[in-house]
């Protein structure tokens, strides 16, 4: 994976974007809990579909089908569903832009769009559940600084609350001091769920900073990422020159 720079942030960005690098698992989320938090179906309920399974369909000849195997969700005819994560500027282990880039690299059949604080992913439902499970169980999720929010998503740039949790106007989750865990009582659409679900303990502040992929005064200064800005500066110059005359840009 290509990404400029030799500092620890650049290295971590490259690792996240490299599909051959396994994401470290930090917690387990039961399938039933996952389904409840997503809120698209009830636990145990069959996947709803928009078309019959592919092997029951007679489709027109298409060479692309021979090149690309359909995902399990597509084979089953699942509906397209969504999951959306909000990432705090205070060192959520991943950020929207890198989520988007990572989704494109690691997940097949997914569509995504990056905002300032959140990243939406759409995929066939059983594919989405598989991807979401990895997103929740591994090092790129922190229950205090990362949140699942389908609606009323803001809070990423707000200060943290007393317990270090990212602000949520819908209060989908709370910090349980006794257990040192973050407990969800609502699904991603802020609809109350039948029982509370723990997504584990927040990571230590210093660990979050050590693994942060955000440049800044408390990690690696903006001005120190010299190679990164050399590359962006060259992209800018080449875009302007090449847009006017492609011959002015070296290949």
């Amino acid at each position, binding site marked *: 994976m290509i990404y400029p720079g030799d500092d620890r942030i650049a290295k971590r*960005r490259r690792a996240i974007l490299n599909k051959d690098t396994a994401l470290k698992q930090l917690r387990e989320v039961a399938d039933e809990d996952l389904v409840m938090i997503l809120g698209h179906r009830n636990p145990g309920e069959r996947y709803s579909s928009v078309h019959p399974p592919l092997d029951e369909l007679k489709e027109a000849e298409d060479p692309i089908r021979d090149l690309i195997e359909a995902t399990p969700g597509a084979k089953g005819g699942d509906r397209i569903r969504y999951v959306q994560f909000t*990432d705090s*500027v*205070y060192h959520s282990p*991943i*950020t*929207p*832009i*890198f989520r988007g880039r990572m989704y494109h690299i690691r997940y097949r059949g997914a569509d995504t*769009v*990056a*905002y*300032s*604080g959140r990243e*939406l992913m759409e995929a066939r439902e059983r594919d989405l559940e598989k991807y979401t499970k990895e997103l929740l169980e591994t090092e790129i999720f922190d229950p205090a600084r990362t949140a699942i929010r389908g609606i*009323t998503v*803001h*809070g*990423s*740039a*707000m*200060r*943290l*609350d*007393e317990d*270090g949790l990212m*602000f949520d*106007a*819908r*209060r989908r989750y709370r910090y349980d001091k006794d257990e040192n865990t973050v407990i969800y009582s609502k699904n991603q659409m802020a609809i109350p769920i039948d029982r509370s679900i723990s997504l584990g303990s927040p990571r230590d502040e210093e660990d979050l900073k050590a693994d942060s*992929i*955000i*440049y*800044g*005064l*408390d990690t690696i200064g*903006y*001005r120190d*990422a010299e190679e*990164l*800005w050399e590359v*962006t*500066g060259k*992209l*800018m*110059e080449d*875009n*302007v020159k*090449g*847009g*006017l005359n492609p011959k002015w840009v070296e290949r």
Partner: protein
Amino acid sequence: MPKKSIEIIKETFKEDDATRERTSFYEFGGWRQSRRKQEYVKLAKDLIEERGLTGYQGDREDMGVPLGQRFIEPYYISGTDVLCDGEDLHQVNNAAIQQMGDDIKRTAISGLDMTHRMLEVRIGATVTPETINRYLEVANHTIVGGAVAQEHMAEINPAMTRDGSVKIMSGNEELMSHIDKQYIIDINREYPANQAEALKEGIGKSIYQVVRVPTVAVRNADGGTTHRWAANQCTLGFITAYALGGGSILADFSLTSKHMQYVTLGTPTWPRRGPRGKNEPGGIPYGYVGDFCQADAAGSDEITYFCESMALSNFLYLNLWVNGYVIGGIGGVHAGAVLFTNNVLDELAGHITDWIVDRYGGLAKAKPSFDVIRDVCHEACFHLLEEYNRYPLLLEHHWGGAIRMFILSTLGGMAPSFATGHSLAGMIGYHYTGGYLMKEAWGRGSFGSQDSVDHMNLAYAASMVPDEGLLPELRGPNFSSDSTNAIVQCTSPSYAVAAHAARKDAWCLSPVVKVAFADSKLPFNFKEVRKEIARGTQHEFMPEGDRDPIKPGR
């Protein structure tokens, strides 16, 4: 350097420390913490009773998101001591914002040289200062709805059209000395001596007519009626003043007086973004923002003139165009407020100005180059991001990516223009900043696909091919790529205005448009944009174009 903006934000948030990363939420009383929301809830209860239909119910948590889970901060209007609520900055709630837009929409400018030549050569009339005075008197009668050619006409209540006017300007001082003072926009009086000389030289000996159709005209229709209203009524004025008759000759004359040398402020807008007629905000090029704004005429320094222009840009393109036409409803008021509240832009612009002066020896001193663009854009961006790191309260104040991109892009456009005095350098820097810098520093941008326009515009930066590129000052929200992006539309004037501010130019795009907005009789004072809007927030601004004279009992 003392940070006035941080002190203001501490005051408005009632916080004693802007550097703390942690705070409390959910304890501020919800919607009740806002004076305006309390007022609206009370008002709406009466209205629901009165109309027998439910309406606004901001006190109902089950209506959607519970309001006020965090602190709802009020805003100081920069350059003033006026504190207001966010609601006061919505264009529907602020009469000054509306009037600013109306005063632009209702402006019709046309050159009179061809009309006068037509009168003299084709028709055989004599044009003298006396006849021009006579014409202006008649035109000021017709423009507000007075009849001149036919006797059996329905005329307009003059109280409804009291802000209509026809005035002229010229660099020909000898001629202007013979024109009745009430009919001229006096360049010498409105501008500092140097600027006045440059404007008179730019306008030359030509005579331009500035028509303000009554505000009520554009409130009944839209800016598209301005050209037609002015053309019809002024041509009738010529017909009367010069006693014109006949068929084909009159037709030729009408065509000339109505349409030749007409200065279109805004082109008709793209159908996909809401088709509107001429003179609507979406068709106005960025360069005119610096010409509408008269803060330089009031003797402001470059930074203040720039900040006043960016405030105007926000009200024109965000409040009136994006929120008013393209989106409707509650729109995105908070994002643009960053350009004119709490002294933030003034202070950041001041920082980059000092940095440029220190590094390059002054404004407009650096030769435009990619190295200079990179240099100043990196400083502008990194300084702001560092401020966010130092002051989490400032970052919470700029809680959305669009808010941050509003100010970041503005600085990215301003900085290269201030350094080089070159608007193309500013434009390239603007899109470089929006397309790359915060995105790679923080791994987050603004709204979805916000940066796509920046990448496209970099590749088309130097193009003059239709639908690709244009001179920076002539680009605008109606420009194909920019038409899809609210932030780009509202903040792109930064590069156009800053380049000319740095060079101390007398105008940005047109000396004629510049002078047209110096008319001190306009309801909205374009010399003090932020003060006028601040008056609007306090309900102290008196607009024109309402229906008071025809309401019951009048």
